[in-house]
């Protein structure tokens, strides 16, 4: 298995092999309809060692509500794995936020900015 997949598994501390693709994560995900690749499909890509998983937009759409983690029947914890995917992407220096595009930067709530920086920047 590739380096990237290894990192995702290591960071998340989860066992993706346990996933039996029931789709509970997708069924309960409030953001699923806005995702290019659905949560259960992301887990499948990781099971198959597909490194393109870091290019998926859906992990950035993820609201980190952890409903999927709560309901996952196999305790795979998709939301935690998506966090790991985001971390791996960030460490590659990919920024998912453009500060210049924010119109009124000074009016933006500080806490939101800190959170956004943490989650979306490398």
């Amino acid at each position, binding site marked *: 298995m590739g380096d990237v997949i290894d990192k995702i598994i290591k960071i998340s501390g989860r066992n993706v092999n346990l996933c*039996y*693709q*029931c*789709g*509970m994560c*997708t*069924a*309960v*995900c409030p953001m*699923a*309809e806005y995702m290019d*690749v*659905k949560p*259960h*499909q992301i887990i499948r890509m990781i099971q198959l060692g597909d490194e393109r998983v870091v290019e998926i937009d859906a992990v950035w759409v993820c609201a980190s509500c952890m409903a999927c983690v709560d*309901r*996952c*029947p*196999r*305790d795979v914890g998709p939301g935690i794995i998506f966090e790991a995917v985001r971390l791996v992407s960030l460490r590659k220096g990919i920024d998912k936020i453009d500060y210049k595009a924010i119109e009124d930067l000074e009016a933006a709530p500080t806490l939101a900015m800190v959170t956004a920086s943490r989650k979306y920047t490398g």
Partner: protein
Amino acid sequence: MAEIDYSEPRIGVFVCHCGTNIAAIVDVKKVVEEVKKLPGVVHAEDYMYMCSGIGQQLIINAIREKKLNGVVVAACTPSLHYETFARAVESAGLDKQRYEIVSIREYCSWVHFHDRRRATEKAVRIIAAAVARIRNNRVYKPIRRRIVKKALVIGGGIAGMTAAIDIANAGIPVILVEKEPTIGGRMIQLSVTFPTLDCAQCTITPKMAEVGKHPNIKLYTLSEVVDVSGHIGNFHVKIRKKPRMVDIEECRLCGWCSNACPVEVINEFTRGLSKRKAIYLPFPQAVPAAYVIDSEHCTRCGMCVKVCPVNAINLDEKEEIIEEDVGAIVVATGFDLYDGRKLPEYGYGIYKNVIDSLQFEQLIVPSGPTKGRIVRLSDGKPAKTVVFIQCAGQRDVNHLPYCSKICCMYTAKQALMYKSKVPDGKAYIFYIDVRTAGKGYEEFYRKVQEIPGITYIRGRVGKVWEDEDGNLIVTGVDTLSGELLKIKADLVVLALGMVPQLDRELAAKLKISVDENGFAQEVHPKLKPVETEAGGVYIAGAVQGPKDISESVAQASAAASKVIQLLSKDYIEKDPLVAEVDESRCDGCGLCVSTCPYGAISLENGVARVNEVACEGCGMCAAACPVGAIDLRNLTEKHFDEMIKAIYGVKSR
């Protein structure tokens, strides 16, 4: 056959190669050479397969020719071949109390494969210990216990009834205890059975009638086993029989009582889909065929007493405790459905139109609460769209971790029955995997898939809720296409899993263990599927694990055959390796009495006395005794002392 002389030890050691399993690591020739030097050993040899006919004959011949009075076989684990060699030594006239098997495969060659020298040395050491043990073993007379030729079956569902009929047909009296007012169990609540679509009631009612009329079966309904004492072949049970308040013999089923009764409560037989009176007949074919008063809800108004034309009702009837002696027990207490209220996201117990699979069965039954019409329970409108959710709360670490095995098949059946009643209806079945292992099962599944209007969707349902018009909205995913689905449905049917109906207290009284999910634990999943840790107590049906009707029936017959085997003898012999009290040392503290899990020890004249028949030889008393007054026969302190000395007496090379 010549009598064996046990005065001076003459021990033979037989070392097995187990092909290369042992011999490739343990130097068996060296072992033979070393053990010959042990005190008491007069013969030692090795052979390729000691368990083979030739190998066993080597032992038999040596016992006769060398006048052996003790045998140690160094081979594999005793759980495999203890009995094989026990039979061989006994056929040569040697008592098996002077025989021991030591596992030099599991304990030496398999675990120490990287170190041949030490594996060989360890083999010699543990053989030396075994030699030291049997050298000190006395030959005790076997203990005989009388067998009570009567059986108890707990649970009157299909498994319990089958077991009871089988045992009774062998001429053995059976007591069948059922906690409900009628026998029939879960099966009588079903519509048709897969894969043949036979009417479930038509299949089970002849069995119920047979149980009711069988001269060898005594049926106690509204009854529960409250206490069990004794042991294999000789149990004493106490049964609590709740008052029925209606005389079974007198009741003519006219139903006037029920018409007169002012109290209405929910009917558990239809799983709450209808009401019944406080005096009622559970269903028309109930056995015993008599009305019953639900003492919990009855107000004792006496209306029924006034109208009963045969004076069959007695509101003063009291609960009874019945005591029985039996030789064997079959536990067939069956299953219940997992509580759907634990899945609030599916709306069970919140929305009327979200039901469980047994409730759906009641909608199919022609005599059911809707007269066989499949309707929305909220407003009685026909159900044009039904969503079935398989694995509801199953295969799920948050609910039941296991698969209940029958849901794939009954859901397929229910979808088929639905389509036969509502031809223009739509059925959607959410599944994860469809499991149809069983004769004719896959074929049945295929037949259901062929029906237009039944759609199998591979995926989970996330949520079920109700819109303003009272329709259910089901959101889920089809994992194969990745599409998110939203289905408007009239009914949602949850395939809830099977949970065992086995009271922990009863299990403890029967001394049977339960697994992590509460199912009764068999002794061996493959070879002893109906036996329990408690001798003479057998299990059958869904109390042992999820299974369908045919498997329950097969297992019930298996349990019955075990009971018949046991009760066909007048006595059973057991190993005399029981606890023994040194009365001169016993100070009568009674610690052993409270420690003994079998109630086999009592205090008599200030000293402990062991009931040999009841003692199972577990050794708890020996460990507990503060003054060392109790020992197990042939496992005394002296035995252990000499065994340890023997282990350290072998010189390291």
